[in-house]
């Protein structure tokens, strides 16, 4: 039951409401499907001016209220992170939903099928949190995607920051859906830095298999520092055979686990092909 709805225009006013237990609402796309019987007071955070994308030399700061449509069209974000963020944002759901879903909502209201969080994890993003009477704090996305108490509780996400480097970064991003607007059955996102022929700083993130995206650490270890070749990829993909999969009605766990392997292989190949051409 929604007992009140506030639309503050100053961050301080929003923080004061959130500190007393009100709930932040951004895109609101999950507001009415949440089966909560709790009496809640909502704080609309879409009028706080947090809808800007700011590109600096070493990072891009994406305001909490940036919609996925806006992110998908953000041609000003340079390099690999820009290309990956645009590709992932454009792949999400349908156009009207992309016009509503916000970057912060995709993190705070994490759904297992969400397409942006795996990408943010692969990009080593950090989440900026604001709370009343406290200095802003930054939290690694990995910690924010874990279960349990989240750093923004009692406050709000203000921005998501993605680092930009001069290194030769490449990515591969693959998702599999039954129809273009359906939820992902599995996603795989690879980022790495090219060091001559060698793969460095390899991140392989699997999404939509479990409640939250996760890095495939064993697979990453098999690839780190090695030259890309079929044997190295086979060895890495083989480690995905024991991935835990949360069951859902869309496809069997075995199918989705195998799919994750296929998508990971494709993502690695895409990243490598990009590295070879660049």
């Amino acid at each position, binding site marked *: *039951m*929604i*007992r*009140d*709805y506030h*639309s503050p225009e100053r961050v301080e006013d929003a923080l004061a409401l959130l500190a007393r237990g009100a709930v932040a*609402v951004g895109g*609101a*796309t999950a*507001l*009415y*499907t949440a089966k909560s019987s709790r009496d809640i007071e*909502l704080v*609309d955070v*879409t009028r706080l001016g947090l809808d800007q994308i700011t590109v600096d030399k070493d990072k891009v700061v994406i305001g909490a209220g940036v919609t996925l*449509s806006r992110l998908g069209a953000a041609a000003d974000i340079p390099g690999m992170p820009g290309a990956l963020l645009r590709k992932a944002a454009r792949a999400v*759901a*349908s*156009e*009207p*939903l992309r*016009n*509503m879903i916000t970057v912060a909502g995709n993190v705070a209201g994490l759904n297992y099928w969400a397409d942006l969080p795996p990408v943010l994890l692969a990009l080593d993003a950090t989440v900026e949190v604001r709370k009343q009477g406290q200095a802003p704090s930054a939290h690694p996305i990995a910690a924010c995607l874990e279960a349990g108490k989240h750093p923004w509780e009692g406050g709000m996400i203000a921005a998501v920051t993605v680092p930009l480097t001069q290194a030769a970064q490449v990515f591969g991003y693959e998702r599999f859906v039954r129809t*273009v*607007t359906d939820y992902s059955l599995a996603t795989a996102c690879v980022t790495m830095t090219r060091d001559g022929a060698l793969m460095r700083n390899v991140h392989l993130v699997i999404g939509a298999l479990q409640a939250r995206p996760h890095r495939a650490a064993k697979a990453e270890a098999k690839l780190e520092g090695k030259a890309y070749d079929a044997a190295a990829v086979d060895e890495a993909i083989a480690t995905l055979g024991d991935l835990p999969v949360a069951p859902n009605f869309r496809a069997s766990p075995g199918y989705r686990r195998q799919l994750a392997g296929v998508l990971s292989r494709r993502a690695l190949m895409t990243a490598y092909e990009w590295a070879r051409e660049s």
Partner: protein
Amino acid sequence: MRFNAKINGLKREIECAPGATLLEVLRLMGYKSVKQGCDREGTCGACTVLLDGTPILSCITPAPRVAGREVTTVEALGDPSRPHPIQAAFVNAGAVQCGYCTPGMLLSTKALLDRNKKPTDEQIATALSGNLCRCTGYVKIVEAVRNAAAALTEEQKP
């Protein structure tokens, strides 16, 4: 709650419960072109309206969110005696069968053609990706959008 918003160009005072959806409010105000389909899931697009010119789903939009903003429904486009070129294109192409999805389709089309005078079929499909039609198979709808784009371009020639 009480707030003002512009609906189809007219300033309106709206009174509703804090948890009311925009769909509920618009239908109670008489804007019956806005349809309830999936209802509160945002998957079918029958409830599509334009908020400041951008397509959104009114069944999952809190009504108070539109305070001070402009909402457009199909009632603003035209009527049977004076249809908007997009409406005429849908009728002429046979893009309407049961008609339930049509208001959402028309508004998604309007938003697309407002920013892109000559969209490709791929851009049309992307723009209509949130609007489900269970009757037509989309072929005639895409044709209607193409024809509407041509008609609007022709209309704007000096």
